[in-house]
């Protein structure tokens, strides 16, 4: 599928010529005017734009069933949890707020019972580590207390992530 995979140097003439031609052309008045008139960095999603065609059926079908495989979903979820927890760090937010935030992130990755998965706690541990917390501080964080108290194995998984 990929062509022209050569270093971007003198030898890569095909790409250079194409870019050069585009460079010259891109300055033409019509391009500018049309660009202004037509541009917009959008591509349709179901809500926003030119979705009334069979093209959008294809996009909808492949986006909802194709490339975002469960492994990628889990990986993206784990990264988001790490980012969330590292952003909170020593924050004094309440447990309810924290859990609402977790639910919102999980829902974006099609997970409803985020409490039930070990990888959630491992990710929390990694986030805490990234935030620069010492391990002794973890169990005292107000937003984590109810989660940890509900099941002792959760702290073990958090530690696993913390030590990674």
């Amino acid at each position, binding site marked *: *599928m990929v*062509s*022209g*995979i050569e*270093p*971007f140097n003198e030898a*890569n003439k095909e*790409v250079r010529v*194409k*870019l050069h031609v585009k460079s010259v*052309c*891109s300055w*033409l008045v019509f391009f500018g005017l*049309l*660009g*202004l008139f*037509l*541009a*917009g*960095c*959008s*591509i349709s*999603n*179901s*809500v*926003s*734009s030119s*979705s*009334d*065609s*069979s*093209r959008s*059926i294809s*996009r*909808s079908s*492949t*986006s*909802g*069933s*194709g*490339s*975002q*495989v*469960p492994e*990628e979903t889990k990986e993206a979820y784990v990264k*988001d949890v790490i*980012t969330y927890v590292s*952003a909170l760090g020593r924050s004094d937010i309440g447990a309810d*707020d924290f*859990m*609402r*935030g977790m*639910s919102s*992130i999980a829902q974006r990755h*099609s997970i*409803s*019972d985020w*409490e*039930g998965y070990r990888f959630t706690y491992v990710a929390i541990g990694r986030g805490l580590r990234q935030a620069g917390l010492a391990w002794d501080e973890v169990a005292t964080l107000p937003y984590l207390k109810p989660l940890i108290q*509900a099941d002792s194995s959760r702290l073990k998984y958090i530690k696993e992530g913390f030590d990674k």
Partner: protein
Amino acid sequence: MLLPVSALAGEEATPFGLVYIGSNTGGASGGHCALRLGDVAFHFQVGEQGFLKLVRQPWQEFLHCYNDIENRPIYLAKTRLPSGQVARIETHFLKLLLAQNRNFENLSALENEVRLLEGIEQGSDLALPVHRLGLFAWEAEPHECDETLLRLKKRVLDALGKDFLQHIKTKALLALQDVDSRAETLEIPRSKTQLVPSLGVFFKRLQESLSLWAMVRVLDLSIPLRDEVLVDGGEILPSFRASLEGFARELENSILALLSSKRPDKAEALLLQMARLSAIRKGLSSGRLLMLDTFPQGCQSVSYPKYRDDIEALNNLLKLLGKRLNEAQRRYSHHKSIHEPEFNYLENLATRFWELKQALSKKGPVRIWNGNTLPDRTLAVSLLSVGISVKGRPLGVKEARDGLKRYERSIKRLYGYDILNKNCVTELFSALESCLGPGRFPKSTTVGIPFLGFKKWISQMDVSKVEFYPSYRLRRLDEMYRGQNPLVVYLREFNTITSSIYHRNTVDTSFLLFSDDVLIPRPIYGCINVIYAGLNMAIGVLEAPFDKGARFSQGGWGLVYSIPELFMVNIRKGTFAWVPPN
């Protein structure tokens, strides 16, 4: 500065680079820019309400969307950066995404709260939306029971005590009476990475308590599922049956654990798990892969007249979806039990398959939605029906309205779109600048046009190579040239009438000749396309009473996109209804 090769992001480490997406009709006609970071593309898109929002998309899906279906050429400038910096950039973009999601959730929560408080002030009977309650036949007669939920209820009472459900119900009602309606402290986001606290808590607490009450009622009365929320993904493969049974058992355990959880919003998750359990058990007893419909309520649909010219392509798509469903079942057959992400993948796949199958057989509309979703049907429940009155509570309607206005102003400032100064490329460069500091990347203020930004990137950054992904049509043409008589191929494929690769559609507007693969004759092709589009406009005038001006409009846009070709510039390349993904 010398760095060891392993410390640089390149092919060996995380692929990193700027992506330039060529122009075509539809959105982003002037081109588009994105950042490739590993297996993900980050880019800024104008979405709902005209806000410019950061989007994260799997790289393969991104390619399929822009390079195949949109038929745009893509250039990827692979760039060398120390891997530590690439990791910092990834974290920064994830933070932007996190804060952005929180900001828009807050905006929506504040809007809900203002509506709620105004409703209370006016003394109207308030009905709050309960997510996933609409999956169940809420108004069903009491004698209609779901056998699965009946068994589940017995298990719950055995495990957690016979008063457990009544206890939760009472707690939920008490919480509904006690929710504090006073205005909360409002924190306005000052920057795009600032994670402000979750807002609209009054509304959320009411909603959570009401959901809990409704969830207990569903379980207590074993209310059955609505028939229309089920989709049929075909036969359950014998090898997959055990995995599905394992998942059903896991769901029961998950429900028991969630019932005891301190999570404030657990009712929504419980309603979903109960609905899934009921659907799976029904499916297992009938041998069919019965799942919950994942299309969101009110999503758009494409009517039959809009897709009838692409029936063949859509039949191919249906076959592909059926094949994927079977592949997924086979893949998960070896698992002792599947987890929620795998199950949701199946749900989304089965929903698309069922939707298309039904629509093609009945010549009906096809619902569309991009991305995976959890099944949800929201139902509004009146507070009065639960015996709750919110009259006489201290209100902060004015404060809430003022807060909403302030929040809206901040959101507009942060995410507003401006075609020259705040677009897909300026925001991308600005995000990079704010991550690693000025001077590392081309200045965001000097790169208003996607192609210009890409050119500057190549000249200023340490680009190891530029990968060129030709558009789908050009790739297919290239294959044909290699295997067939080039003259015959050219004569067949240079126009939209005899082309075997391209099929004409309404999105692409009126045009006759492809000008993206020719340079010198482009103005001549442009002339012919102008004449062709003009003729279509003229015929469109006559047809206007019958087609509501559709052909006239197509001709008009065809003319607009043909004019640049007179000046050697190609925008339109044609798009495809369906392209088999790799």
